[in-house]
């Protein structure tokens, strides 16, 4: 009951957000200079051809009707067709989704494996401990080196000394699992550095905050061992901010890590959207942004659900 009463409004908010996103995305495409027809037919169009296009795409109708029509099509899974290949955009995206998903999961795993333990250790280390400084340094460094800088560096290193890992020449995980890993590991590592820093900093801050709470004093007062205090009382209480940044980070990864996919020639969603822009195939850009935002909103909704499971007070009306 508690979770239901808490979650229903969140669902409504997510729906409103999605509607707002869709309206912005719709408007953006209508605002492209030269209009839709120019984009479709190039600069040398006859007025008749322009008229024909306008009627065919319903561009002669009021903007609101156009939007509603477009929205209606969306609900039937019609995200339009590529202006270049004429293939349905949705199919193109679904074909590339697994590549991006794999990359995102790999990066997330590395970020959690690196950031969580370091963050917890930095949080429970005594105030003047050297580990705290190290954690801050790693955190600052990871949040400061942009992915394309790190990616370029890795490409340089691994193309000069061809170690086991490879740059470019993507192969799918089903045809060649090992080869796939050799291709994906470098971009995943590139993406994960920021994640490590993000998780580390957030975890450290959250743990530090919990450590000064009264119930930690209570646990100390009844003679609990440090390991039990961390395990039983610190981790769960520190989890909410960590869940927040991890879901935001994952949403960002799934939305297509454009720069890294382009840099490493990984044929995922981000790469696809970017080449859509380069080819002036705006339907792809539009659909790509819409899908990414939808994924992001969904993941955040799952995070809201996670809050209620982690903290029994969430949604109880008392805080």
């Amino acid at each position, binding site marked *: 009951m508690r979770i239901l009463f808490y979650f229903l409004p969140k669902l409504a*908010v997510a729906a409103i*957000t999605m509607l*707002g*996103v869709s309206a*912005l*995305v719709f408007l*953006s*495409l209508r*605002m*492209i*200079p030269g209009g839709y027809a120019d984009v479709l037919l190039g600069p040398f169009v006859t007025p008749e051809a322009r008229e024909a296009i306008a009627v065919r795409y319903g561009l002669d109708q009021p903007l609101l009707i156009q939007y509603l029509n477009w929205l209606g099509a969306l609900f039937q899974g019609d995200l339009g067709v590529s202006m270049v290949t004429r293939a349905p955009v949705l199919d193109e995206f679904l074909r590339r989704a697994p590549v991006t998903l794999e990359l995102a999961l790999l990066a997330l795993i590395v970020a959690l494996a690196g950031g969580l333990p370091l963050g917890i250790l930095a949080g*429970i*280390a*005594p*105030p003047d401990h050297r580990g705290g*400084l190290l954690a*801050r340094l790693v955190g*600052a*460094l990871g*949040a*400061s*080196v*942009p*992915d*394309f*800088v790190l990616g*370029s*560096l890795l*490409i*340089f290193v691994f*193309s*000069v000394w061809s170690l086991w890992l490879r740059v470019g020449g993507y192969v799918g995980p089903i045809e060649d699992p090992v080869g796939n890993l050799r291709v994906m590991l470098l971009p995943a590592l590139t993406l994960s550095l920021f994640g490590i820093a993000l998780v580390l900093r957030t975890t450290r*801050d959250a743990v*530090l*905050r919990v*450590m*000064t709470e009264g119930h*930690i004093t209570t646990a*100390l007062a009844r003679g609990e061992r*440090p390991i039990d*205090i*961390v395990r039983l009382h610190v981790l769960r209480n520190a989890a909410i901010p960590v869940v927040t940044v991890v879901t935001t980070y994952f949403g*960002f990864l799934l*939305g*297509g890590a*454009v*720069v890294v996919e382009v*840099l490493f020639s990984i044929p995922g969603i*981000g790469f696809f*959207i*970017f080449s859509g*822009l380069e080819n002036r195939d705006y339907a792809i*850009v539009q659909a*790509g*942004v819409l899908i*990414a*935002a939808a994924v*992001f*909103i969904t993941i*955040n909704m799952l995070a809201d659900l996670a809050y209620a499971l982690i903290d029994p007070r969430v949604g109880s009306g008392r805080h």
Partner: protein
Amino acid sequence: MFSILWRLDRLSRFGLGLLIFLILLGLVGPHLPLGDPMRIGAGPRLTPPSWQFPFGTDELGRSFLPRVVDGIRATFLLSAVAVIITAVIGTLLGMVSGFFGGFADQLVARGADILFAFPAILAGLLIAAVMGPGQISAIAVISVATLPLFIRVVRAVTLGLASRGFIVAAQVAGASPWRVMMVHILPNIIGAVIVQLTYALSIGMIIESALSFLGLGVQPPYASLGSLLRQGSAYLTFAPWLVLSSGAVLSAAIMSVNLTGDAVRDALEPLKGRSLT
């Protein structure tokens, strides 16, 4: 406030010092005897670093060091302009949202949700499609990405303040909402805004350079650190100093901003921690 900063530890001081150094370098760079960033054929093409060309030369024989110094200015300036405009708008919206509550709050909060749902670089692609690549697009992208951060932080802090005694007392005295916000709320949230400003600046610099790296930000012949990296990445294997120098300077610039942000935050709300024995 600055006296608090200097009481902080080495890492914070290092970050603040680096930030000041880079900003000064970007400001006075054009007047330093570093060479002309635009002069084609100042030296042989793609020469490695030497005393004459500390960062080597690019494919047109231009000395790379003055180009990097120029890039620092472009990156800082563009991000700072975008972030400061955004901070002003976001602070106002956040205060209105947190103080008035009700419908205004819903409107602002949902707007922030919508902007927050756009991944920054993808929003950049969309905006580049609409407005064409360039500095204005880059500023718009940075604003879209950082506006929700300001709104959310300012709204939360304002909500916390709204029930404080001095706010209630001012309301009871008949002070107008504008007066309450400007005299009582703003001075008390400015610290949080500054912290957020530094983080937004670092995000803005990352976005700006990423867009420029993709060819969507600063356009040639002007250079930002991101576009220099883009330029250099074509010659990565045989002229790595182009990528390494501009990448290192870019990372150092962002790190100086991040460390400064940490320092300001630690000064405003220190996290103490405790030992478990």
